[in-house]
């Protein structure tokens, strides 16, 4: 078994469940027998402010505690974050980017281009590594609120190699168990839907 370490960074806004998204990633992988780790980067900012969290998955015990500087996966919960200066920090040609947006791959790439110009940064990511998913639409349709943190992971299950839909559903079930059956079902349905349509 070769040493395989996959690092993910999740970007979102305070109040959108960014840390939960990272936790779910780690949890889904954990259910598949992998070693995993998730942790937040906390600032002083509050509800509405951009924040991020990290997840690591490996087939070895994860010992390091440093933050994720070169993510294999970048998850963006809200396309308005594209203009945030730090969003692509450490992203390389092979970084896969999953973004909640009703725009398509090409449009998003254009946005990134614009943003990196205005931030005076060099754009290293590749257009073919961008995946867009309309998580907000689906969340509104299925859950009735713009809570995309579980939903967007359905697309990750599809596009990524981190975990299966089943493991994700198991993770969501565990995490939302205290919220009542109704909320849980809606979330699972939304996740399945996004998986199916991604």
């Amino acid at each position, binding site marked *: 078994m070769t040493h395989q370490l996959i690092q993910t960074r999740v970007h979102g806004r305070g109040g959108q469940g960014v840390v939960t998204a990272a936790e779910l990633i780690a949890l889904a992988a954990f259910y598949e027998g992998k070693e995993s780790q998730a942790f937040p980067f906390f600032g002083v900012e509050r509800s*509405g*402010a951009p924040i991020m969290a990290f997840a690591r998955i490996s087939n070895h015990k994860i010992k390091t505690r440093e933050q994720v500087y070169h993510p294999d996966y970048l998850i963006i919960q809200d396309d*308005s974050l594209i*203009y945030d200066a730090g969003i692509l920090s450490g992203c390389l040609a092979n970084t896969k980017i999953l973004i909640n947006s009703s725009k398509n791959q090409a449009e998003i790439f254009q946005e990134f281009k614009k943003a990196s110009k205005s931030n005076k940064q060099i754009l290293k990511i590749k257009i073919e590594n961008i995946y867009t998913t309309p998580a907000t639409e689906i969340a509104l349709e299925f859950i009735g609120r713009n809570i995309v943190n579980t939903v967007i992971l359905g697309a990750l299950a599809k596009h990524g190699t981190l975990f299966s839909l089943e493991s994700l559903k198991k993770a969501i079930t565990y995490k939302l168990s205290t919220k009542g059956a109704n909320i849980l079902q809606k979330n699972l349905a939304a996740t399945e839907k996004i998986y199916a349509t991604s």
Partner: protein
Amino acid sequence: MRPVSKPASSLNNKTGSWRVYKPETDYNICIGCSLCAKLCPDACINMEAQKNMAGKLKPETDYDYCKGCGLCAKECPVKAIKMVKDF
């Protein structure tokens, strides 16, 4: 090095990037009452004098800082402010 900062230096921190929805004011409806400006937690509505308007003040939103909370819109007595998706 002292843990001391200059006054009003938070102006360097453009919190407009937090915004998802954006307040847009319909100046035809607005009566210039200043309530929105008084309530805004981010002090980013300025009531400006307008030419030829007999002292009626015009609320100007500073989008560099407006976080899009919608408080102004909710409290405007004449519903002159609308929140619209900002992207």
